[in-house]
């Protein structure tokens, strides 16, 4: 296929060249901008992942990951976040068919699962600090609390955002701008789940090596 055919292939406008089609619709522009923000957020996380990988065995004689982490507990956290990502997807479908009741329902399930994840994570943090494994104990623990804590902070902000969005659906309904924001929220929530895959693989399952 030649380049000219390739340029004309997508869409139904056929003969109108790219240079004359005008700007993309605002839904596409807004989502693409938010997509770029998410990627930059992931790049920020990569710095924390790099710090953790380098410092993972610098325990300064303190407890190491193998002693501190409980895998079945982490599996439970992972399940909460994965299923909340799935219900968030179902919420997207409810928004697309403009169903208020279904949107509320799936948003509520997403919120509950997200809050359960956050509760599990916080109680894990408190248990570790109670055992003397606080962030000040060693470089390993500083890096651990920074990485996992930053992810937890993102989840917290996501929950606040979800509540704000439900308030907007209640007061404004499905205005184009509200739908756009809801859509950005679902992208954010899916991205948090992707970061968590890195966390449980590198931090919790990598603790043996």
């Amino acid at each position, binding site marked *: 296929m030649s380049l000219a055919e*390739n340029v004309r*292939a*997508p*869409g*139904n*406008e056929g003969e*109108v060249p790219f240079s004359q*089609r005008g*700007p*993309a*619709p605002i*839904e*596409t522009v*807004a*989502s*693409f901008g938010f*997509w*770029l923000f998410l*990627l*930059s957020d*992931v*790049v920020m996380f*990569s*710095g924390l*992942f*790099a*710090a953790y*990988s*380098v410092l993972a065995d610098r325990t300064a004689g303190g407890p190491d990951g193998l002693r501190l982490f409980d*895998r079945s507990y982490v*599996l439970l956290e*992972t*399940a909460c976040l*994965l*299923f909340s*990502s*799935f219900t968030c*997807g*179902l919420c*997207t*479908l409810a928004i*697309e*068919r403009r169903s208020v009741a279904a949107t509320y329902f799936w948003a509520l399930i997403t919120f509950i699962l997200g809050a359960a994840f956050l509760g599990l994570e916080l109680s894990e943090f408190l248990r570790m600090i109670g055992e003397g494994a606080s962030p000040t104990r060693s470089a390993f623990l500083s890096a651990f609390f920074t990485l996992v804590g930053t992810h937890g902070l993102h989840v917290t902000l996501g929950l606040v955002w979800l509540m704000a969005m439900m308030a907007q659906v209640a007061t404004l309904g499905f205005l184009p701008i509200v739908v756009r924001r809801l*859509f950005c929220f*679902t*992208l954010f929530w*899916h991205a948090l*789940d*992707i970061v968590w*895959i*890195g966390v*449980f*693989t*590198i931090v919790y*399952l*990598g603790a*043996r*090596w």
Partner: protein
Amino acid sequence: MSDHSHAEPAAQGRAPGASPSQRAGFLNYLVGLGFAIVLTLASFWAAGTDTVWQPAVPVLLAALAIAQMGVHVVFFFHLSTGPEQTNNFLALAFGVFVVGLVVFGSMLIMANLNANMPPMTMDQLMKMQR
């Protein structure tokens, strides 16, 4: 008018996350969830098992994690390499490139510094500062 607004997103690129239709969308999320569950359980199994040659386990874990991230990107973000998603895909490729540079670059440099640093006593370190 409605015809026009339908044609435009395809021509100008599709937003990341936009799903095709209700029924296909639901199946899409369900398949993604199934893959993600299998890959997650496989990761947890691989980390605790003795049946796999031990030095190969980190590589296996990395492969499973990358596979699961791919599943999430395809089934939850609905990202594809199609012509209407060129912008989204290129941005993602650049993001992955930067993440790879930061993470593997840092690990490589720090391991190299560690290996090349002669073991020093406190006394030698003090002398170096003068």
